């Protein structure tokens, strides 16, 4: 019992550190990557002065995340006069909490036997490196991600500001439209792996296909599914090119126009944390999770695997996150009608066709076995 608690606590600690740390790092990555793509220098002003030797430690501008936090905390916590105070204060947390919750379902390592390393305290126990090993993981991830939209709508409504309201109306129509495509985009992979459990999916992606040329990852099995998922997920996250709910040049900041200080930071931070979550889901569904292709290191170094699994998972998630930031700094914003046309008339039929093709293919494969 105590051993279970200790292990779960360690997992939660790792998950928190990885999720929040990576989200903080991504604020830096976003600045620096966009700067390098636009022939600029990027964030480089913030420094820490080492005492006595008078050296300014700039560290490529990494301290800007700390400076951001300090600045946000020292800002005035403003509430508009006619705002609905309770909902106004509640909304950022409804946006932020589901993002943290979703990480509980992501497996970041295989089955470990702590007895081999830490002795008899963990005698005879095996743990899956996942906070909540649930059978219907894929469903629950989709369900929790649907909660975020309530917070966004509440924030716009409670602010009593026309720009906020416009932003939240846009957000509602956009997020509900793309949630359909998001759910349908994950369905072919669930059919392919034959399970809703995320860990089973990762196990199913081990090995290789086409005679050992390609790893049997979801992205190679069905590239179209991966593209549809990434598109719909970016739209869910309200980032450019789908950022009309918070389009700065049109409606100031959209649904969080009236928020300031740490409450505004919660919205921003939720956005970056959701990038990490989207990347995590993408890695689990399409990039083979915590495994390396061609080399089963867990078989050759069972003790080292406890460190290698989370590390490989972290690196994969970081690369996918960087790709999302690359997309954000390359594309212009969709117009409102273009966005809905793209969602309902292009992405949704494409997802339908994709499901049909994958289902037919799987049926043919099963028939000929």
């Amino acid at each position, binding site marked *: 019992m105590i051993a279970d608690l200790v292990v779960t606590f360690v997992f939660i600690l790792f998950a928190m550190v990885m999720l929040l740390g990576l989200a903080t790092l991504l604020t830096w990555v976003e600045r620096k*990557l966009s*700067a*390098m*793509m*636009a*022939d*600029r*220098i990027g964030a*480089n002003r913030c420094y820490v002065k080492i005492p006595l030797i008078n050296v300014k430690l700039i560290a490529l501008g990494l301290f800007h995340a700390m400076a951001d936090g300090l600045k946000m905390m020292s800002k005035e916590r403003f509430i508009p006069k006619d705002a609905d105070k309770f909902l106004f204060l509640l909304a950022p947390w409804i946006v932020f909490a589901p993002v943290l919750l979703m990480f509980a379902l992501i497996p970041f390592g295989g089955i470990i036997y702590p007895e081999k390393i830490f002795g008899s305290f963990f005698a005879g126990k095996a743990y899956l490196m996942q906070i909540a090993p649930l059978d219907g993981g894929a469903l629950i991830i989709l369900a929790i991600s649907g909660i975020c939209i309530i917070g966004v709508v509440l924030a716009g409504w409670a602010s009593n500001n026309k720009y906020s309201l416009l932003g939240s109306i846009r957000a509602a129509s956009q997020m509900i439209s793309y949630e359909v495509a998001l759910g349908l985009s994950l369905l072919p992979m669930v059919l392919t792996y034959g399970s809703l459990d995320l860990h089973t999916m990762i196990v199913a992606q081990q090995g290789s296909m086409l005679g050992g040329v390609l790893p049997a990852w979801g992205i190679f099995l069905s590239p179209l599914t991966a*593209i549809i998922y990434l598109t719909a997920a970016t739209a869910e996250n309200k980032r450019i090119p789908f950022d009309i709910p918070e389009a700065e040049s049109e409606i100031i900041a959209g649904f969080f126009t009236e928020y300031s200080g740490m409450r505004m930071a919660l919205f921003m931070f939720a956005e970056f944390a959701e990038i990490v979550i989207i990347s995590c889901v993408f890695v689990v569904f399409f990039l083979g999770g915590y495994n390396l292709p061609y080399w089963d290191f867990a078989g050759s170094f069972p003790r080292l695997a406890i460190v290698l699994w989370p590390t490989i998972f972290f690196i994969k998630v970081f690369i996918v996150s960087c790709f999302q930031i*690359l*997309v954000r*700094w*390359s*594309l212009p914003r969709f117009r409102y009608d273009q966005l809905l046309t*793209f969602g309902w008339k*292009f992405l949704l039929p494409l997802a339908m066709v994709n499901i049909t093709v994958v289902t037919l293919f799987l049926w043919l494969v099963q028939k000929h076995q």
Partner: protein
Amino acid sequence: MKRKEYWNQKEMSYWEKLYYLEIARGLWVTFSVFIKNLYKWCTGKKGALTVYYPEERRSDYASNFRGKHKLTILENGRPKCIACKMCENICPSKSIKIVAGKSPDEKDSYSLKIPLSFDLDYASCIFCGHCVEICPKDAIIMTNDVSELPTYAREKLLYSLSDLLESKKDA
């Protein structure tokens, strides 16, 4: 010749309407620039076109750039300024303050008035050059230099007579 019309004419082709191929093309452009700059950074070269301003100055200022005022001096070291206050009056942003006084040498052949203080506030100066044009003695001129504008305190932008006066070496 009829002028070409560009706006609202171009129809998207079939491939362009698929979005994803065009998006991939756009991503390739930004990604290649990123890789190019990353390679330059790794090999110690400078990838950015921008300049890390106060520490690093561009060398290609125009030859007729006028960025810093200078008070010229006579051969005996006395400032050419005769404290007539013409520049103080013409200054559109009221950045110049002159306090006039008597010359210590009572038989000064150049002028009996000297500036006791000559304050130029770069915080409000707009570099219009009116002071240079109006000056009857060519006492104030503008040089190709760049003034130290980025500071942490507004008081540091207030230049006094000794800051503005050219040294004997320059003359």
